[in-house]
Each structure stands twice: as structure tokens, then as C-alpha cells.
């Protein structure tokens, strides 16, 4: 139950970051990059696909541990962590490209709010990947099937939450942001 309270509060956290992004949308300094000029929809679509697939791997891991199949659980949880790391790789690539094209958190309000929002999301994904890998390691020592796989269920809820936050960011910041910007 506390996990749901935590996720509810996380909604508020990302809500404020998104509100800040939207409030300052279109108020960048003249001559600095805008969302329409710099955001790369094809690349981000691929990273979105990667994150969606990681959520599928996560539910398959949870389904495996619920049925007591630790071997399959290890495979799926490792796939989830791998896809999560791939998503982070895409984000690092994107941030580096933006920096080369002249957009940093200091450039304009778009840069500040964009990097804060997506950066915090990336930090959440990083925490998730560490959590997933620690559970993978723990599966060799402890019993993950006790309490109906509660430990796995908690990381699964967290991981899917990170996924739905990205669903919102991809739509609002990227698709709508580029359409308007």
C-alpha cells in the first residue's frame, strides 16, 4: 500500500516538472534552439519502443516468479535491466547531441526545463536498473517467491510507473512540443 502512496506522490513530482516545462514553453531566447528545431522524433520513438518492451519483460519476470519459476525470472529481469540501460544510452546520446547543437540547461528556458524533466526521469530509470540488477543478484541467494513475490512486485510497479511517465513525456514534450514548436 505504501508503494501506491509513493507512486501517487511521484505523480505530483513529475506533474510540477511538467507544469514548469509547459509554463515556459515557447519563451526561449531569440536565436537559441527551439523544440521543433532540435527534438529528434525518430530516435526518441525507438527509445520509447525500447522502454515499452522493457515493461513487457518486467511483467513476464513477475509472472515467472509468481509461478515459482526462478530461472525464467532471471532471464526476464536481466532483459528488463538491459532494455532500461539501452534507454539510458539513448538519453545520453540525445543529451550529447543537443549539447553539440548548442542546447544545454543554461542556454534558454526550454533547455533548463527540458533537461530537468527528462533528466529526473532518466535518474528514476537509473535507480530502477540498479534495483532490477540487485534483485537479479539476490535471486541467487535469497527466496524471491516468499510473500507472493512482493519484492518483485514492488520493483515492477516502480518500473511501470517510470514507463507511464515516459508515455506522458513523449506525447507532451516530443510529439506535441515539436508540432507546436
Amino acid at each position, binding site marked *: 500500500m505504501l508503494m501506491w502512496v509513493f507512486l501517487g506522490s511521484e505523480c505530483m513530482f513529475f506533474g510540477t516538472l511538467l507544469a514548469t516545462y509547459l509554463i515556459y514553453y515557447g519563451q526561449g531566447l531569440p536565436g537559441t534552439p527551439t523544440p521543433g528545431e532540435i527534438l529528434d522524433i525518430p530516435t526518441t520513438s525507438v527509445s520509447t519502443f525500447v522502454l515499452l518492451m522493457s515493461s513487457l519483460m518486467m511483467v513476464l519476470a513477475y509472472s515467472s516468479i509468481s509461478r515459482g519459476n526462478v530461472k525464467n525470472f532471471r532471464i526476464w529481469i536481466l532483459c528488463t535491466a538491459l532494455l532500461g540501460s539501452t534507454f539510458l544510452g539513448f538519453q545520453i546520446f540525445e543529451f550529447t547531441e543537443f549539447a553539440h547543437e548548442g542546447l544545454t540547461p543554461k542556454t534558454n528556458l526550454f533547455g533548463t526545463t527540458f533537461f530537468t524533466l527528462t533528466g529526473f526521469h532518466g535518474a528514476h530509470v537509473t535507480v530502477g536498473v540498479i534495483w532490477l540488477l540487485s534483485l537479479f543478484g539476490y535471486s541467487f541467494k535469497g527466496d524471491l517467491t516468499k510473500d507472493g513475490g512482493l519484492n518483485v512486485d514492488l520493483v515492477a510497479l516502480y518500473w511501470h510507473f517510470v514507463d507511464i511517465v515516459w508515455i506522458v513525456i513523449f506525447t507532451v514534450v516530443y510529439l506535441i512540443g515539436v*508540432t507546436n514548436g
Partner: protein
Amino acid sequence: MENSPHTRESAHPTPLTYVKIAAILVIITAIEVGIFYVDALTDVLIPIFFVLSAVKFTLVVMFYMHLKFDERIFSWLFVGGFLLATFLIIALMILFGSL
């Protein structure tokens, strides 16, 4: 009520259902990206994006986060936070003249 994320585990979907949901999520994302490049839809793109995004969001929350099968209190906790965040975004945008 137990101190766990859910209490009705037997009602959870099968792996095949999870794969079907993933396929729907990928198809919706492909549609989003596809219509993004259709110039004729420019005027109606934003509402379409919101609807498609809401469908994806709901599918993940209902099935992958299994709220559809859990105690109502968990739904209220999460939906409460989500609605509060939505109202916060709208209120701040109105306050700062962005809406």
C-alpha cells in the same frame, strides 16, 4: 487489507495477455509517430495525441500495474495523486497565463 501492493493474485492476466497488451502499446506508438508526419492532420493532432496517450497510460496502469485486479483503495491512492497532479498543472498554467 494487507500491507502489500495487491491481494487478489489469482486474478492476474496470463503472459499471453501481457504480450497482447505490449503489441497494442507498440501499435498505438507507431500510429502516434505515423500521424505526426501527416500534414493534413496538423489541426487535430494534439487531441489525437492526448487520446492515444491516455489509452496507453490506462492499459499499462490497468494491466501491467494490475490496478484492474487489485483492491479499490490502491486505485484511489494512485488516481488521487494523478488527478491532483493534473489539476496542479492546469492551475499553474492558468496562474502563469500559459493556458
